[in-house]
């Protein structure tokens, strides 16, 4: 890992942030009509309910400085976005977009990271066993099942899981993340959180499992053909050691690279899983924002989704050289 590599990765991160900001800036302007018209029209339609309508309009005008040249507007928008000043939310007024999102984000990050780690680890292990000649027959019978699982998207799996395990059997709650909003952490509170998070997490794990298993199987088949595996066998090493230390250890490297790429899709998928389960993360926030045409909030969620994933990818890429000694260290 050279400084050049670190620099390139950081540049990529900021390119993503820039791209997300630019899309948020340009797209509403490409849409037919004045950008304020849409907001005003919408504020008028709910004028009675929103006390702060005037504030929001003022905020909006100040934010866009609609009389300034486009480039100045863009610069200001970029600056505000980088400060995480994304305007006011309509549906969660008087909260700002950022504070509404920051309240929801921990739920999403916890759900997504835990279930992705489980899916990645378990899927990779199963995939490695699928390619391993010495693994039990039962493992090989899993292959078609995993293939089907990997094909069905997060959201559809979530609906199926929701129906089977919550509605039909009644084993799990229909949705939400808690019975009573948790004040502090105690064992019953954690149990309640886990009980509510189980089905959304299960959906994400099941949806990811097949993907990681099939990817790992491919990587493993490549590694099994390598000379160093033949020598490891010739050395008289135990099967278990060859499997973990020589085959799986090496086949995991391309998997980690794939993880960086798959994270965006996983995030998109889990947003929808949250919608299916009314899980109070940014997916659910987004759903409410869409229902009430809260454009600032929609854009804010999109922006946060992009930068969170980009940040995770950045961390993953910077950690990767620790796993692969062939990449030069600093």
């Amino acid at each position, binding site marked *: 890992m050279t400084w050049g590599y670190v620099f390139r990765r950081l540049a990529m991160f900021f390119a993503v942030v820039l791209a997300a900001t630019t899309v948020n800036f340009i797209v509403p302007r490409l849409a037919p009509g004045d950008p304020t018209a849409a907001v005003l029209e919408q504020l008028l339609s709910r004028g009675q309910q929103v006390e702060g309508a005037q504030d929001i309009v003022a905020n909006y005008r100040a934010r866009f400085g609609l009389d300034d040249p486009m480039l100045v507007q863009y610069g200001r928008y970029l600056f505000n976005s980088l400060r995480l000043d994304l305007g006011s939310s309509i549906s969660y007024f008087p909260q700002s977009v950022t504070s509404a999102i920051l309240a929801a984000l921990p739920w999403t990050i916890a759900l997504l990271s835990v279930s992705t780690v489980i899916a990645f680890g378990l899927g990779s292990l199963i995939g490695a066993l699928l390619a391993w000649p010495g693994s039990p027959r039962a493992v090989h019978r899993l292959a078609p099942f995993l293939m089907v699982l990997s094909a069905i998207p997060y959201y559809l799996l979530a609906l199926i899981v929701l129906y089977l395990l919550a509605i039909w059997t009644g084993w799990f709650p229909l949705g939400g993340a808690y019975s009573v909003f948790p004040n502090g952490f105690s064992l019953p509170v954690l149990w309640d959180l886990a009980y509510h998070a189980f089905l959304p997490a299960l959906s994400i794990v099941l949806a990811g499992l097949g993907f990681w298993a099939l990817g790992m199987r491919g990587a493993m088949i490549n590694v099994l053909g390598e*000379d160093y595996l033949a020598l490891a066998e010739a050395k008289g090493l135990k099967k278990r050691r060859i499997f973990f230390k020589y085959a799986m250890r090496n086949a995991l490297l391309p998997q980690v690279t794939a993880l960086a790429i798959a994270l965006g899709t996983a995030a998109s998928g889990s947003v929808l899983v949250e919608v299916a389960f009314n899980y109070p993360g940014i997916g659910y926030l987004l759903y409410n924002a869409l229902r009430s045409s809260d454009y600032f909030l929609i854009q804010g969620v999109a922006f946060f989704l992009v930068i969170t994933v980009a940040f995770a990818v950045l961390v993953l890429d910077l950690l990767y050289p620790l796993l692969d000694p062939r990449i030069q260290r600093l």
Partner: protein
Amino acid sequence: MSDTVLKVSDLTVQYPTASGSFHATRNVSFSLQRGERFGLVGESGSGKSTTILALMRMLKGGLVSSGSLELNGRELTGLDDEAFRKLRFAEMSLVPQGAMNSLNPVLRIGAQIGDIYDDHSVRHGGAERERIIGDLLTRVGLSPEVQRRYPHELSGGMKQRVCIAMSIALTPSLILADEPTSALDVMVQKQVLATLGRVQRDIGAAIILIGHDMALMAHFVTTLGVMYRGELIEVGPVRDVFSNPQHEYTRMLINSLPSFDRQARFIKAAHQEALP
């Protein structure tokens, strides 16, 4: 204890294919004494590598259909897999052909050598293990510090030396070397082969060297076997084979050497090398 290290009798290896089974070796028989250097030559596909893989029980897809393999007086063909695993590198080790890719790229050299001890129930303390691996590396002409390096930090010759060091880690009585220098530069080839010869003599192991370079072979081995289409068509002391080849194919191999003058020198060299 008998001086015979390895006795191969009537070894036949078959590969089942779509159109019937294919004989990779047919009735191959030979034996090795303690410390003997046995060379196997022949064109690719003649069954040299198959013979070695059959010895190591590492045939992929092929099977030993008949014959017996006796190592240090023990029959190997009926041995269960776990017993065979323990025997690998402890009694019979392998120096691989593809030195460039034979080391795990993400493990340090020391860890890759250490694994051999760990899985053969040889326990060392941390410092002791480091010293033993360091000694091993010194014996093959490498610095002890190499154990802390990764394969990509080593040259091809150094990697092959590491493989040689591994092959003597448990002082086996037989080393199998499958074209151990074919992936290296000509200059490095000789040095690495010399190192292999030196450590082999040090530990008193017998060695089977596979190669197609008759010149390199003549310098190194005492006994020469020629394989052709899966059969061992000629075996004998290297000078006998050179001076009085029995088989047409052997004659062809010798005649393909650059000149009679050089042949004479090889034979002379072979004589000298053969002397202990």
